[in-house]
């Protein structure tokens, strides 16, 4: 079997890349190990209800008619119209630290006025920071020595304000602990504070079904239950992928959204053939990420707003300094994100009421449970601790829970194959997408763009740059 391009992974980056290529008449096949599409942002049925895997909010949202920014560019590149994804904007969100709260929404003026009110001495610095962020063309790359913290310190002096502004930025996209490279900070800062949040009424299902329908309509092929176990190479070039069942598929180009460490392993697995052919292309070692999350999805008997939780998202921290890191304990109960799919400006209310609580988790603890019973028991214990700690920030919602599901780093690893159960991948991004093989490229999380909009953008730009290349 042979294709022009094979894409490993039918997540958001793979689907978007696939549409681009199929639109320009390439023979393209998406290979997905799981039984369904979506990857880190899929959905599942449990006890009669549909849950989104990861969706809190689509970041990087711009309202209909906006011309610049990643979302309008994605729509143009994929030939979608504004209404295809059915986005509804957020209501409002907040960052809650001991003694101080900052509210923000899709109107950047709200955050600005909140800072003017709570940190009057910092407002000029904040305005200069915003100007600096906006003056950088989208996707500007800075040396990796320049980070968010070093940049924030040039504009702001109150450490609490720096912590508060940085927390959502790291939580929604940093692959490295405590701090993030400036290049990525700029993207994330805009995606949260300048653009904003939205959600389709039907959640991520809507986005995925629009994408996969279009891909198939253009003649693209999706193969589920088709994990790639090896990438075969010869003389510095990838020649084929081998599926878990042994099927061999040849391709001129391969795009992989599996992650950089994961993709390097697939190459290692395919190396036997190389040695036989006298090829010595070394596979550079990759830096694995280690940050991951534990999330509980609580179904409630009434909308969260009726219980006094009207925010779309709420980033809470019980200490003046947050710890964005792989925690020593199984879960970091002091801080996290509380969000609700109900709290968006829909035309009609959602039929179900849901609250999601997400905290950072220690992947090893969750991988190394001795038995299934112990794993389930630990999930229950830690969920209860997280809920109890969250009550310093929200009213007690526990009596209203009608059903609950919890996922851990183990769940993320199981369903997406990401090393360490990492959500934001390796701290070392490969912005140009290249690998040690001349026709194998990364897309998605480890190329550098993440989130729903970011992953789609990544797939599109890697397809353009490395496959369509302006001349194909």
């Amino acid at each position: 079997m042979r294709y022009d391009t094979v894409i490993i992974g039918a997540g958001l980056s793979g689907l978007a890349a696939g549409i681009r290529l199929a639109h320009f008449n390439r023979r393209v096949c998406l290979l997905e190990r799981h039984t369904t599409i979506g990857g880190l942002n899929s959905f599942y049925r449990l006890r009669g209800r549909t849950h989104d895997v990861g969706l809190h909010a689509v970041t990087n949202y711009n309202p209909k008619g906006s011309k610049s920014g990643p979302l309008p560019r994605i729509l143009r590149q994929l030939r979608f119209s504004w209404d295809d994804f059915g986005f509804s904007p957020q209501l409002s969100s907040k960052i809650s630290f001991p003694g101080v709260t900052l509210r923000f929404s899709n109107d950047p003026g709200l955050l600005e006025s909140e800072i003017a009110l709570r940190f009057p001495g910092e407002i000029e610095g904040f305005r200069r920071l915003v100007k600096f962020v906006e003056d950088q063309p989208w996707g500007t790359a800075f040396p990796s020595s320049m980070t968010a913290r070093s940049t924030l310190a040039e504009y702001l002096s109150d450490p609490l304000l720096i912590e508060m502004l940085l927390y959502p930025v790291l939580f929604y996209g940093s692959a490295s602990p405590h701090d993030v490279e400036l290049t990525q900070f700029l993207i994330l800062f805009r995606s949260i504070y300048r653009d904003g949040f939205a959600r389709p009424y039907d959640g991520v299902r809507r986005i995925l079904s629009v994408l996969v329908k279009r891909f198939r309509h253009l003649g693209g092929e999706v193969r589920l239950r088709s994990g790639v176990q090896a990438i075969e190479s010869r003389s510095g070039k990838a020649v084929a992928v081998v599926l878990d069942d042994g099927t061999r598929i040849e391709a001129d180009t391969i795009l992989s959204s599996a992650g950089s460490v994961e993709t390097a392993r697939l190459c290692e697995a395919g190396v036997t053939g190389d040695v036989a052919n006298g090829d010595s292309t070394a596979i550079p070692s990759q830096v694995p990420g280690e940050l991951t999350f534990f999330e509980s999805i609580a179904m409630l008997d009434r909308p969260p707003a009726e219980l006094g939780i009207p925010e779309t998202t709420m980033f809470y921290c019980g200490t003046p300094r947050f710890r964005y890191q792989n925690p020593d304990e199984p879960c970091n109960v002091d801080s996290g994100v509380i969000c609700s799919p109900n709290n968006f400006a829909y035309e009609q209310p959602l039929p179900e009421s849901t609250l999601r609580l997400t905290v950072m988790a220690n992947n090893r603890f969750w991988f190394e449970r001795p038995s299934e019973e112990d794993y389930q028991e630990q999930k229950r214990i830690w969920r209860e601790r997280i809920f109890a700690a969250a009550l310093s920030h929200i009213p007690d919602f526990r009596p209203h829970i009608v059903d609950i599901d919890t996922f851990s780093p183990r769940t993320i690893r199981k369903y997406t194959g990401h090393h360490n159960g990492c959500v934001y991948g390796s701290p070392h991004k490969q912005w140009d997408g290249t690998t040690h093989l001349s026709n194998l490229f990364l897309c998605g999380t480890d190329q550098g763009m993440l989130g729903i909009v970011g992953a789609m953008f990544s797939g599109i730009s890697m397809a353009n740059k490395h496959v369509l290349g302006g001349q194909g």
Partner: protein
Amino acid sequence: MQPEEIRQVLLDILARIVPDEDLSTLRDDVAFREQIELDSMDFLDIVMELRKQYRVQIPEEDYPNLATMGGAVTYLVPLMKDVKAPA
């Protein structure tokens, strides 16, 4: 194809790339980029759509010829003279 037909082909391509723009007032002598929001990715798409739909190959060094509608039509007339207009 006649110049007017080529102009229509370009308008149809633009309408698919930037469906939310009003193209009815587009001027032929002013750069596209000054009238509608077109970044370099979108610009490349005009070239790629021409290749996909009409098999017209445009080398990269000729891209500046496509900056305005007038320039693009003039440039494309010899390349598309034997191409049939879309039904």
